[in-house]
């Protein structure tokens, strides 16, 4: 498996997109920190990058990579290689290179300008989101037959988690505004990895003061060991389930 990952890396390194992504993140992060005199506000601006750009790039890059490596996959599948291991290797290769790009591109500036718990939370959330959306992109890719459909589905996923889901949450809020929904809200928002990451980082940024009672509730929940485990568990589920489903579909896929 490690051998296959090695070749996935070689392939990724050759097309330079990940390098461009790293540079892009570096430039954006350094610019944001450079513009703001207060590193905390730099982190705040970075939050939006992490929440929107990281999922988008992870989805699109993974989908394109998958379809571009179709030849590679075809070639290897005629060889004595386990299908599920091949896909897991592809996942590991893509995920690890995107995570590296993120850690260099965002982690570097964060460590330089704003080291500390908040920065660490931002990096952890970014890494988790990268893994989640790479996994989802693999699932989308193995379920679609051509590149255009794959990218379309990837964009749909991004749109759903980044925007649509919050819209639904807001609608629910309005519809049931007469009921005590705090607990339900807590569960609803943590079911979306993007929201979970956002809240996790915000609590570190002590924005929770703005969030009044709700903030206190979240703070209490995520501050506890059970809450941290829950957050970690939800993220893990969002990584493991899609990639597991992708492996299952891939093992039955005709090439």
């Amino acid at each position, binding site marked *: 498996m490690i051998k296959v990952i090695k070749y996935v890396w070689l392939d990724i390194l050759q097309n330079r997109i990940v390098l461009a992504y790293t540079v892009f993140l570096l430039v954006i992060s350094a610019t944001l920190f450079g513009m703001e005199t*207060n590193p905390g*506000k730099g982190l*705040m601006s970075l*939050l*939006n990058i992490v*929440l*929107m750009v990281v999922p988008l790039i992870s989805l699109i890059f993974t989908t394109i990579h998958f379809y571009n490596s179709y030849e590679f996959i075809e070639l290897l599948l005629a060889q004595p290689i386990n299908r599920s291991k091949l896909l897991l290797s592809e996942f590991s290769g893509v995920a690890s290179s995107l995570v590296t790009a993120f850690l260099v591109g965002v982690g570097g500036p964060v460590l330089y300008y704003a080291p500390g718990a908040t920065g660490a939370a931002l990096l952890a959330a970014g890494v988790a989101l990268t893994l989640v959306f790479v996994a989802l992109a693999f699932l989308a890719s193995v379920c679609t037959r051509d590149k255009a459909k794959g990218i379309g589905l990837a964009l749909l996923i991004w749109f759903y988690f*980044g*925007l649509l889901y*919050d*819209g639904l*949450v*807001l609608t629910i*809020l*309005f519809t049931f*505004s007469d009921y005590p*929904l*705090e607990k339900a*809200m*807590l569960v609803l*928002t943590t079911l979306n990895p*993007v*929201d979970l990451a*956002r*809240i996790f980082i*915000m609590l570190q940024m*002590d*924005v*929770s*003061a*703005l*969030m*009044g*009672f*709700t*903030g*206190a509730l*979240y703070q209490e929940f995520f501050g506890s060991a059970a809450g941290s485990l829950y957050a970690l568990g939800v993220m893990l589920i969002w990584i493991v389930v899609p990639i597991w489903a992708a492996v299952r579909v891939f093992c039955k896929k005709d090439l």
Partner: protein
Amino acid sequence: MKVCWLLLLPLLSSAKTIVVGPAESIRTVRQALFVAADYDTILVRRGLYRERNLLVEKPLVIRGENFPIIDGQMKGELFTVRASNVTIQGFDLRNVGMTSTIDWAAVKVLEARQVRVIGNRIRNAYFGVYFSASDHCLVSRNDIKGNPHEEQTTGNGIHAWKCDSIRVENNRISGHRDGIYFEFVTHSTVQRNRSFGNIRYGLHFMFSHENSYFYNTFQHNGAGVAVMYTRKVIMRHNIFENNWGSAAYGMLLKDISDSKIEDNIFRRNTIGIHMEGTSRIMTQRNLFIDNGWGMRIQASCNDNTFTRNTFQSNTFDVATNGQTVLNTFDRNYWDKYEGYDLNRDGTGDVPFHPVSLYSMIIEKIPYGVVLLHSFMVTLLDRAEKVMPSLTPEALVDAKPLMKPR
């Protein structure tokens, strides 16, 4: 000749100085108070005096040399002043005890005038300096540091009840329940004080009309500053900073009228100013920066004017909880303003609506804050800017400034 007479006048009054010290014939302050005559000076030399319940009932100057320590050993009040024209200066007053029945203080002034409490160090006191039914008193250059427990078991740093013409100046107050507390105090001035790290409010007043607050700094207080049920207050050049927490305010105004809030700085507070039931307040030339909410103006406020203020990098500049707006916004600088100034008169040609849609949503549904900083909220606010539908149309700055003042 007349001048000579005047110079000799103090001598003729026969006022004398009584020296207290470990090496002197009078070794306790109590003894000195007993022997002193009106208008005498008691000079207390450096040393540790384990005394309490020192009753001052005649006009005296009581002065410490190199901060002699008066230690109440947590058993009672230190000085209780019942006479006018008393000065207490230069002491290190510590360990005032606490009871639930009497508000023991390091220095308590009861029904007196012209009492001056100057340049003392007050440590671990239940109440620091306490005035009751007194007037024309001065509290100046004291350093008051409490040992904060819970709100109920900690007293106020400087406390005044039913007083008039008090001056509170250049004090440092921390670790108390309220830094400065006024109730039924009028015609008084509070200036150049630093009140920080108090459990509840840095400054708290009620029913205290016609007072002025200048150049004070209120930082890191549990709930910021709260002022209530008062008319004709002037607050200028104060700094309200870092009052951060789920129920913290830079300043909380409740039922305040005919007042002026000018040239203050509100920085990094959960809420810069919260207004409730206020009317006819002129709010101008203040700086609101890095607050969660710059201002939160409840619908119960009317006839207030907000002009030439600067709003920078607040999460929300202005929030309100109703559709009716009876206040005036004019010529403020808003960093979120994206309009243009074609005629170059320094004010934008497009009006600015400082209330965002999302802040309205939060007012209605408080737990909507879970969506704070989400992409969808950004989009919603954008859409609302283009086509306002939910935000109050009348809450508008018709001439927003293009540049901060």
